[in-house]
């Protein structure tokens, strides 16, 4: 099996190299059969890597511990759902996932454009195959997922308990889909520059949907990671400005700029240098993100350690940056804009400003992330920046961004008139300012940045809501449809536009949630014994009682010991909710020097957060039990088992161990143990997840293929009436 998997990867590498040669030869010599052969190489790689990935998945699902990666990342007791996900929890497995997704997306785009873009496509195929060859080389020569152990262990190490969360099943494929999809516009951008096809916007149109999908997938991946952090890790936050987190944010920010500026090139033939630079930068940042998590160049909690992949990635990134700059400079004449900016009060000017803010934000994040290396080069000393530095720059930029996302969709193209501005902005501005005044009166003025974000967010929601309202009104006037049917057909006729509007609303909700939960949360770390109460914000948290349990797997094996607490939350004497935070201890797989009882306290530990999520406020708590009092009992238990070693039958020993552990957990509860609690009351956190879902829905609507062009034809009179209704004539 492993030999077949490895052979498939070697074959994929050979096919990629052949495909590059065939595509380039076909492009230069105008030989269609070689161009087609190059394209088919991509399909073949997709098939080969699918085979390799299926073999790896099969090894995980059947717990084949002859595979080194299965032995170190899975076990027979790992639930099936997580056995499948464990395939990409290792360096080598995640690289294979990267290559697999790249080959699938590349096949999809090349199949879609097989009868178009005849000049550009062969070069783009060669670039995509170049990426495939790079990753296939890493999997063949550096980090093979098909390495075998000389002696297969009876049991694997198991998937880290921290990763046993549904988000973690979807988070990496989403991130990698985002990264790999961003290589597609990159490949076509490079091809358009090489072939001097930059004036035609065909390649932009062909890859725009892939850029949007990349943006969406990457965004979902980032938010799933944030959600996992909030609900699974015991610190109560969702973003820590860690280098690997930042690395995923960078291409997302430039990708956001790209999906906006593409529209200006499509509509007005402007910003060609800017667009192609964004395409190239985003593709490069996607590879940089992949590099950061694998190289260990920066200290990150998420980075793979002990990696030898740094040098190949640095070479690839250097080629991408150097090549991109050379290509843009070489083709600068062909990239001249066809039109100029008519007015600063126009949609294109707002989009440009939005682009500048996004790129500034990306630059700040890049700077802060790479500051340790920059500082080392400047001062000879490695230094690092913390969250306050990032917040100092990103908060004002985020406020500007949200404000612009409310202006951009409704301001007119070319030049807005005073009447247009009044008609589109009067209500949202007055209403948002009114909301701001009310919020300030209720205490939001103490956090000016958060208040500014609330006002800007409200402005976006109202201005976009106004657009929907007017659109539905026009549609009803034209067709006599009911409000819901009118809304549905309005969106269906222009999915890209109204999907985009929904994305803006979602982002506004998300940023309102971030601002509120950051500025107005109350947090406290407190040590309590049962019966004690602590006050956080307006709420009283009472540690009512300790809990404990021993859990077994489906096969009846002892899985973990959990120590928890029942925490009653009241407000003004009224009971709000009962929270049950818990900390679980998994046995260490390292048996050397550890007794059968003690090893349960030397393995991985995970927090189960006690959370009451609400539309207005989240009540969050995590706990760390004080198990110091149990240590003498644990040591005594180990001594007893050591003395009985070899005297008990294995099944009796298992029963005795179960009884000993149950005795320990009962003793824990009876001892009225102290525990350290982190208690947080945080407003509007749920808005972040609701905003994310709204962004996801909007993105899907924008991505969904629209009706045929023929069905979208409208009569001149209908068009005129719509324009009149919207006041844009």
């Amino acid at each position, binding site marked *: 099996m492993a*030999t077949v998997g*490895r052979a498939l990867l070697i074959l994929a590498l050979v096919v990629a190299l052949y495909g590059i040669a065939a595509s380039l030869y076909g492009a230069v010599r105008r030989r269609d059969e070689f161009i087609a052969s190059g394209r088919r190489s991509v399909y073949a790689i997709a098939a080969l890597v699918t085979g390799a990935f299926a073999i790896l998945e099969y090894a995980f699902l059947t717990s084949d511990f002859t595979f*080194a990666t299965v032995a*170190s990342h899975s076990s027979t007791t790992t639930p099936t759902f997580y056995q499948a996900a464990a395939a990409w*929890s*290792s*360096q080598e497995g995640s690289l294979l996932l990267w290559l697999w997704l790249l080959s699938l997306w590349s096949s999809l785009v090349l199949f879609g454009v097989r009868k178009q873009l005849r000049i550009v496509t062969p070069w783009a195929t060669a670039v995509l195959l170049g990426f495939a060859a790079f990753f296939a080389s890493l999997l063949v020569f550096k980090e*093979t997922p*098909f*390495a*075998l*152990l*000389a002696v297969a262990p009876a049991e694997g190490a198991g998937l*880290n308990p*921290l*990763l046993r969360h549904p988000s973690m099943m979807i988070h990496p494929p989403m991130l990698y889909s985002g990264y790999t999809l961003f290589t597609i516009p990159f490949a076509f951008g490079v091809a358009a520059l090489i072939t001097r096809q930059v004036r035609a916007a065909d390649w932009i149109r062909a890859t725009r949907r892939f850029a949007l999908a990349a943006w969406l997938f990457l965004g979902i991946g980032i938010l799933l990671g944030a959600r996992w952090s909030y609900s699974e*890790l*015991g*610190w*109560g936050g969702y973003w*820590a400005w*860690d280098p690997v987190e930042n690395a995923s944010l960078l291409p997302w920010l430039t990708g956001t700029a790209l999906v906006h500026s593409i529209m200006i090139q499509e509509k007005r033939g402007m910003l060609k240098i800017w667009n192609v630079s964004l395409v190239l930068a985003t593709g490069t940042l996607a590879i940089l993100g992949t590099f950061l*998590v694998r190289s260990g160049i920066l*200290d*990150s*909690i*998420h*980075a*793979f*350690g*002990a990696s030898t992949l740094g040098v190949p990635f640095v070479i690839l990134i250097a080629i991408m940056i150097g090549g991109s700059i050379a290509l843009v400079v070489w083709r600068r004449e062909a990239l001249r804009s066809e039109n100029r900016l008519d007015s600063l009060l126009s949609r294109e000017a707002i989009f440009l400003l939005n682009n500048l803010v996004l790129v500034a934000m990306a630059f700040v994040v890049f*700077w*802060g992330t790479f*500051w*340790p290396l*920059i*500082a080392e080069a*400047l*001062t000879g000393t*490695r*230094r*690092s*920046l*913390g969250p*306050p*530095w990032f917040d*100092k720059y990103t908060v004002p930029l985020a406020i500007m961004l949200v404000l612009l996302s409310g202006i951009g969709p409704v301001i007119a193209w070319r030049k807005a008139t005073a009447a247009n501005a009044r008609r589109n902005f009067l209500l949202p501005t007055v209403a948002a300012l009114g909301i701001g005044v009310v919020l300030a009166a209720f205490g939001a003025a103490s956090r000016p940045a958060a208040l500014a974000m609330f006002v800007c967010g409200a402005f976006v929601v109202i201005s976009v809501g106004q657009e929907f309202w007017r659109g539905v009104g026009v549609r009803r006037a034209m067709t006599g449809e009911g409000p819901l049917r009118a809304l549905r057909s309005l969106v269906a006729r222009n999915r890209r536009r109204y999907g985009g509007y929904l994305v803006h609303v979602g982002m506004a909700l998300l940023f309102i949630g971030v601002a509120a939960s950051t500025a107005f949360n109350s947090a406290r*770390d407190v*040590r309590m014994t049962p019966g004690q109460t602590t006050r956080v914000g307006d709420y009283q948290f009472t540690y009512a009682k300790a809990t404990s349990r021993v859990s077994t797997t489906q096969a009846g094996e002892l899985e973990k010991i959990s120590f928890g607490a029942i925490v009653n939350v009241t407000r003004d004497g009224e009971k709000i909710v009962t929270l049950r935070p818990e900390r679980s201890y998994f046995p260490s797989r390292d048996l050397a020097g550890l007794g059968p009882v003690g090893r349960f306290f030397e393995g*991985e*530990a*995970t*927090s189960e957060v006690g959370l009451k999520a609400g539309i207005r406020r989240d009540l969050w708590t*995590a706990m*760390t039990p*004080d*198990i110091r009092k149990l240590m003498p009992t644990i040591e005594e238990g180990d001594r007893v088992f050591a003395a009985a070693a070899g005297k008990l039958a294995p099944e009796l020993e298992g029963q005795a161990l179960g009884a000993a552990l149950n005795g320990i957990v009962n003793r824990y509860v009876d001892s009225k143990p*102290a525990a*350290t609690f*982190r208690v947080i009351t945080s407003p509007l956190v749920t808005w972040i997840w609701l905003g994310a879902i709204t962004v996801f829905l909007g993105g899907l609507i924008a991505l969904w293929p629209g009706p045929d062009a023929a069905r979208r034809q409208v009569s001149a009179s209908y068009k005129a009436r719509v324009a009149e209704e919207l006041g844009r004539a």
Partner: protein
Amino acid sequence: MPPARKRKIRLVVALSAAVLLACALVYTSLLSSSESVTPSDLVAVKAAADTAYTLTGKVVDGSVRTTDGGVDFRVRDREGATSVPVSYSGAVPDPFREGREVIITVRKQGTTFVGERDSLVTKCPSKFTEDATQRASS
């Protein structure tokens, strides 16, 4: 004003603004950042009291002592035995264990290094591969 001259002025203004912003960025970065160090660095340079350092290293086996509000432990070089004592209060990350790689912001107080509240992070063990020596080629 001729358009070419206008463009040149715009370019100069934009470049000047970019240089000013870059200087501000460098200045605030230097001001706000803490030096990244290993335990050997802290021992060698005689760490200044009240200066924040970002300490990276591995938790020494057998050194972890749970306290009422956090943990006391020693951090050693990734490869090497030089270690320093750290006293930390705040949320202890779930993956924190002996032998794990940690990053923590510390300040020297007396003979020990006191960790800044909530600054302790532990490298994700799912990704931190110790070595691949057990592997044999297929």
